[in-house]
Every structure is written in C-alpha cells, then in structure tokens.
C-alpha cells in the first residue's frame, strides 16, 4: 500500500475571555471531508450558554436546519455534568447533526478545562507538595476516587482515603 494518507484531521478548540463575565469558546474542524466552526458564548460564573453559532463550509451530510439556528438550541443550558446528553438531545443524534453536537461538547469541555488549568497553576512543583495537592483534591471531591488510573485503588494518591460508599 502506498504510504499516502487517506484521511487527515485537525480540530482546534480554544477559550478566551471576551468580557469580564463572558467566555468565548470556539471549535474549528478541518479534515478530508468536513470544514466547520462552532462558537459558544458562556456567561460566568453561572457557566450558562448565552449564545451559539455554527458554520459548515464542507460536509458529507449537512443538517436539514440552518446550522446556526440548530446551534442556538443550546442557549440557556448550563455547562456541567450531564451536559453531553442535553446537547445531543437538543441538537439531534442523527449522522447529519452529530458532528455539530460534538463540536459544541468540545467547546464546553474546553471551558471546563480552562478552569482546571487555573486550579493546576496553584500546584506546588516539589514531589511531596504535588502528591499532597492531588490527595487533597480527591479528599475535597471524593467523586475523583477511582475516576481514572491515577486515582484508582493502589495509587499512592488515594492511599488511606476512604472510598465513597
């Protein structure tokens, strides 16, 4: 087989502060088949989506509805746990809308990660300080326990911490 790519994709998502209480999250997708952009405006601290727009330049299958009108269906929802189900429920789960829904999810994920980054910037850099920082994170929010390999039983980060009932 020739060593030539049959498919290539780049997906870039970023978050920026646009006003004191507004974040703008943008997801841009460009691949062999699709070129699309989704933009979501989020009110903070409520993390409520206050505006959304979308543009599809190229796609194998397009939504029947105008993509921006479709994206605007998520206005009013709160970014948080359970949001993926809500986004898919509002945008639709068909082949023609799933990419749009996923791009909105990626915007929302990036907003959450932007706050996670703020938290991680406070982390001490020495070995013990780092370990204590993550242990405290689990103690503060026991939902982290067994949430991934790093916080699974057997990891020093959760040693001695009571698992949730």
């Amino acid at each position, binding site marked *: 087989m020739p060593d030539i790519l049959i498919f290539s994709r780049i997906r870039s998502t970023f978050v920026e502060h646009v006003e004191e209480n507004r974040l703008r999250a943008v997801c841009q997708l460009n691949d062999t088949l699709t070129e699309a952009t989704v933009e979501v405006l989020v009110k903070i601290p409520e993390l409520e989506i206050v505006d959304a727009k979308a543009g599809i330049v190229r796609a194998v299958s397009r939504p029947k509805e105008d993509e921006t009108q479709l994206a605007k269906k998520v206005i009013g929802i709160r970014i948080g746990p359970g949001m993926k189900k809500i986004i898919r429920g509002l945008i639709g789960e068909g082949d023609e809308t799933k990419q749009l*829904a996923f791009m909105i999810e990626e915007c929302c994920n990036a907003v959450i990660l932007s706050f996670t980054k703020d938290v991680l910037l406070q982390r001490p850099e020495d070995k013990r300080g780092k370990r204590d920082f993550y242990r405290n994170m689990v103690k503060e929010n026991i939902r982290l326990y067994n949430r991934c390999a790093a916080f699974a039983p057997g990891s020093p980060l959760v040693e001695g911490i009571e698992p949730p009932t």
Partner: protein
Amino acid sequence: MIKFMRNKLVRIHQIDKDHLEIHGMLADDIYELELDVVFKKSTLEIVSIEGRWNRWTTPECPRAIPFLQEAVGLRMGKDFSEKVKKMVGRKSCRHYANLLLECCHAAREAVLHVIGEKVETAQHGSSPAEEKPEKPSKAVEVPKEEIRTTPTKAKQRFSGCIIDLHVHTTPASPCSSAPIDGLIAEAKRIGLHAFCLTDHDYTWSKADVEALMEQYNYLLLRGNEVTTDQGHMLVFGLEKKIDRLIRLEELREEVNRVKGFIIVAHPFRGFLTFGVGQLGLTPDKAKERALFKRVDAIEVLNGKVTKKENAFAREVAQSLGMPTTGGSDAHEVDEIGQFATRFESLIRDEKDLLEALHDGAFSPVAYKEERGIK
C-alpha cells in the same frame, strides 16, 4: 488573550487491504498525548493500541497506559462511545478516551466516505451520537423472597415515614449496577419505609411495580428522573412516557396537567477539579436561574455530590423559600438510604406521596448517618 487551547490531530493511512493505521495526537495547555491504533476496516474493530504521554498532570498518570488495552477488540456500533468512556475513560484516562474516540470516528468516516466501503456494524450509528441502550419492557425477573420485615399497609401505624426519593436500578438506568431485588432487601435491612424508582428517562409500569410489591411485601413508588435542557428533574405523578430530552417548560406543562410534582435533582453538581465556589458563584446569583421558577422543590441532600454542593443547594433553597428533599441517588445497592426525605404523614401509595409533596410537609434527612447505619 487565549485562556485555554486544545489541538487534536488525526492521520490515517491504509496498511493493507483490511487494516488502517491511525495516529492521533492531543496537545493542550495541560496535556499532551499520542495514540497509535490499528483498525480493522471490514468490522470497524480496534485491533491494537499504543499510547504515549508527552505531558501530564499527576505523578500517577503513567498508570493509564496499560489500561488502554481494554479497548482492543471493541467494535464501533451501538454504545461504542459509552464503552470507550467506561473502559478507557474511567480505568485509564478520559483524555485518552477523548482522543481514541476522535481517532475511531475519523476512521469510520474514512471507511464510509473516503474508501466508500459498506460496513455492516457501522450502520447502527456511533458516537458522538449513539442509540441508548434498550430499556427493559417489564420488571426484572427476581427470585421470590421470603423475608418480610416491613409491615403491610394494614399494619402500618406511622405518624410519619422516611422515603428515599431518588434511586436507580439496573438495567432501567444503564449507569446503575443495582438490581431491584438487592435494593429492596437493603432498604428493608436499614428500615427505610419505601423508596422511589427514579430511573433515567424511564417510568416503570404500574403492573410491574405492583407485582414486585406483592412479591416482596414492600412499598415501592414510581417516579422518573427526566433529562431536561436545565438538567435532571425528579418527576412524580406523570404516567406519560418521556424517554428523551425535553425542555423544562414543556415538562412543567405536562406535569401541571396531571397535578404532578417536580424536584430539581442535584442542581449544583459540579466539576471534578474545582467547585462552584471557585467560579465565584454565590447563592444570590445562583437563585436567579430560571429553572427554579419551574420546579416545586429542590433536592439539597444528594448522595452523589459533595458536602459543599449540597450545602450550596440548601442555601439557594432557603433563600428562595422553597421546599427541600433528600435522596441517595443510589446506583449501587449499598448506597440506598444514605439520604432520604422525612414525611410527616403516612405514605401508603403514590397518591399519598403526591398529596404529601404538594402539602410541603417534608424535609431532607441524612438517614444512615442519623441512625448510625453502616
């Protein structure tokens, strides 16, 4: 200025007639990781997978790598995304799960639209938009139980009672591992008067629940945890089947028609690495959310959120002067009854429950802690 950026790159080439090699890279302000996946084109199956960390956060993140092998053998199709999230996201790392899904969805598109091959398993949809697992059409078959520890209706002489208003069963809630028979046995053991079946977007049939009550001699009440655009709502008194997302205002209209009751579940369930407080959200700001105008009560003791999140919900409810409830949100048998709701009147059936909810004579209770139950 950009506050956060994530880039994902996927490239695919065909290594032989039936196999694709996929290289994926995720690089953002926090993480940088790579995946090499071999994918069988005819069956959309993951044949092999290799992962590499370039940048990570906790000192234990490298433990995630061996668990990537859990995804080998998975085929795209029904529930693929959910399986990846459970097997890779929970056991390994959710950022690897995110990249693996990106790689596999790209591969599926390449197979279907670039190579143009028909693949049997791919026709059933794959995420980001997948079908929900099927819900049971009738009650789970459970063995006949002989233990009868709870008094029958006729024998009950309560001046009040404690009910867990928020419980999930398997398989009605795909996220639950708690079978109904186990939940009933545990509820009896800890002395709960009754519990409500509040499976996600699923209402048990009256006949099935009556059969279970007869079989176990235990009071079960029906509800539904409905997914709305404003989050999860515990709904009581609504027979109409609502098995997909509904806007809260529509749900309110439906519930009004039958004089039902809506409790907003875990309204401030937050994030894993930061809390609502760190966002600067105050009860005064939070209470302005429009959803509170469309619900009848607020769940302020929920077994799946942090103490701070429950305390925050309580502050908001107090500020709004709204009734409050408690529920375990049990997804495992031993979680039932952690939190519950104390009713001042005797609840014998769903009619009593609705009346009591509308009367507002109830309060949340940390049931197990209060009674010292392990």
